[in-house]
């Protein structure tokens, strides 16, 4: 029983990362209709940057978290301004997808050049000794990971529903033209969305890397898992992204007990894709979003 629970917890840890990636994709998509597959790459990039910061400058692992969040939100705004916004002015959404795939590859290449074909990790934020609860062994980092997801979800919700920038962002998401007429700087709202996605990539990468090892090859599986989670949850729906991510991780963990890991992953994905047959708009998506 306890190791059944352990599989579920392991799956949920994977799921937290997928959820954070999907959430970033969802925020970007809802405001700019761009599917940013590069989000998976930025998570690994943030992780390896944090590792280098920690080992190179001797900063404590926890202290790398706020640093990476700042660097990545500012960095993503820069990337959006320099690469994505200009491309978005000219390219069709399908072409833009290619642009983000290209960015994903570029991030992978950068990781290979900068860090080599090697796995990286760093110590846990609050010690490597796991907490023992009812026969379960929980690395304390699991709590940080769950916290990172909770903070992202809650923070995003507060921002969107309780502030006027959030209102302006929702207006932009709903109808950029009508929003612009009220004096909302639509381009700026899009940049903020990219900044938020950057912050989430940093949160995900920095909190996950102490539990695991990451290297440049992780980039694509993360992008794919995040994308599936976002689509199944309902592209553009934040609740959906989180649900999709956690569900994907959970199913993988549970199926992995009985089958080969590849088969488990395939089955989990197939099951979620089957959801799309019944609900093409995803679990939390609105049909309107699909049509647009």
């Amino acid at each position: 029983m306890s190791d059944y629970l352990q599989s579920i917890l392991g799956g949920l840890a994977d799921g937290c990362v997928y959820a954070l990636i999907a959430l970033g994709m969802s925020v970007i998509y809802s405001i700019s209709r761009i599917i940013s597959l590069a989000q998976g790459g930025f998570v690994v990039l943030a992780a390896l940057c944090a590792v280098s910061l920690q080992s190179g400058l001797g900063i404590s692992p926890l202290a790398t978290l706020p640093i990476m969040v700042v660097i990545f939100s500012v960095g993503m705004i820069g990337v959006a301004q320099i690469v994505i916004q200009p491309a978005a002015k000219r390219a069709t959404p399908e072409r833009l997808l290619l642009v983000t795939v290209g960015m994903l590859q570029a991030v992978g290449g950068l990781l290979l050049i900068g860090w080599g074909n090697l796995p990286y990790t760093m110590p846990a934020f609050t010690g490597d000794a796991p907490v023992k609860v009812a026969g379960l062994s929980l690395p304390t980092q699991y709590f940080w990971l769950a916290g990172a997801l909770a903070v992202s979800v809650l923070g995003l919700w507060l921002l969107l529903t309780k502030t006027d920038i959030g209102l302006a962002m929702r207006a932009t998401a709903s109808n950029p033209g009508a929003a612009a007429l009220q004096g909302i700087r639509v381009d700026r709202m899009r940049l903020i969305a990219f900044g938020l996605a950057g912050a989430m990539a940093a949160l995900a990468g920095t909190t996950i890397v102490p539990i695991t090892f990451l290297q440049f090859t992780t980039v694509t599986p993360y992008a794919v898992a995040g994308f599936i989670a976002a689509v199944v949850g309902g592209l553009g729906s934040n609740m959906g992204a989180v649900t999709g991510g956690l569900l994907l991780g959970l199913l993988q963990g549970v199926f992995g007990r009985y089958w080969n890991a590849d088969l488990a992953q395939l089955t989990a994905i197939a099951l979620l894709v089957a959801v799309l047959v019944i609900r093409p708009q995803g679990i939390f998506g609105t049909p309107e979003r699909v049509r647009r």
Partner: protein
Amino acid sequence: MSAMTATRPRARLFGPLGVAAALALSGCSAVAAAEGEAIRIGLIASQTGPGSQLGIGEVRGAELAVEQINADGGVNGQRLELITADDQSNPSQAVLQARKMLGRVDAFVGPSTSGPCKAIGPLAESAQVVNYCLSPGLKPEPGGWQWSASVATHDLTSRLVDYWKSQGITRIGLLTQTDSSGAEGAESTKAAIDAVDGMELAGEATFSPDAVSVTAQLQQIARHEPQALVVWATGAGAGVAFKGMGQVGLDVPVATTDGNLTYAFVDRVQNFLPDPLLIPATRDFWDPAEYPNDEVREIEANYHDAYVAAHGEQPDFGPGVAYDGVHLVAEALERAEGDAAQARAELEKITDFDGVVGTYNFSREDHRGLAEKDVAIVQATKDGFEFIGGVE
């Protein structure tokens, strides 16, 4: 002599060639004549991309071998030349680079990994050029034009299981990554356990290369109470597994693939090294005291010392196979008196050839030439690889 260089490439050119190869060659024949009287080996290695960790070392090892062969008078008095190309760890690039080289080179060494090796197989076959592939993952056809470097996975696992048996370990757990090398490791390990009386498989699980944690799999295995664990995974996957062992408190000897025989890898996972972490390894990783004779001792010293002098570090997996590959191919070309089409027959006749990876015995059926005798167990420590035992 000049007549020979002129006929050498031609013999192949207008022999039973594929149309594509002929097209690729037509532009090159003038160049081939102009380049004169050297013997040329084309080295295709993954100098960039995921295989670069192997490829860069391979180029170094091959260059070292060419240098030493030329210093000893070349191949039948002719200078040996190395033409290198980067396949970017990509099969289609490997084919492209091999095409470009056809007609200019007398044999191929490389590529670095099994995908690109398989991709250029048909080309080597139709052009009738020897191809000494540097990946152990290739399974060469008897009598074909391709060779495969280093020992086969089943020889590695079989030596490992024998070693553990000698240590009184009988229950072996198995954790593998779901990629082609992991799958082959799993199969070979199970075959090796089956082949030895009294050994049994104690728990088995797989994980995908992007898994964040494998603690659940490790706990599943731990329930079977293994006395030792095989982790057939490279890179991040191996790291995740080692880390997970600490988390679930599974404290048993671990063995892993020779794909992890790199100093850089051990350095990355040094804080999570299982005690001990064993790797079945070829002779270039052994303790000099274990070499079979003085001749081998000299060959190994020649290689290791020159490599360290040139690059300031010990060679790991890549340089050794390329170094041997160049020596073997050069030996075959020498025996064939420079006739590339004869090189396959001559290479198949090479036996008892002492290289740095092991002692090669080729035949029509065996295009690998190494066996379990060339494997021993080393232990990965923070300071490098330490010889443990298992030599016959």
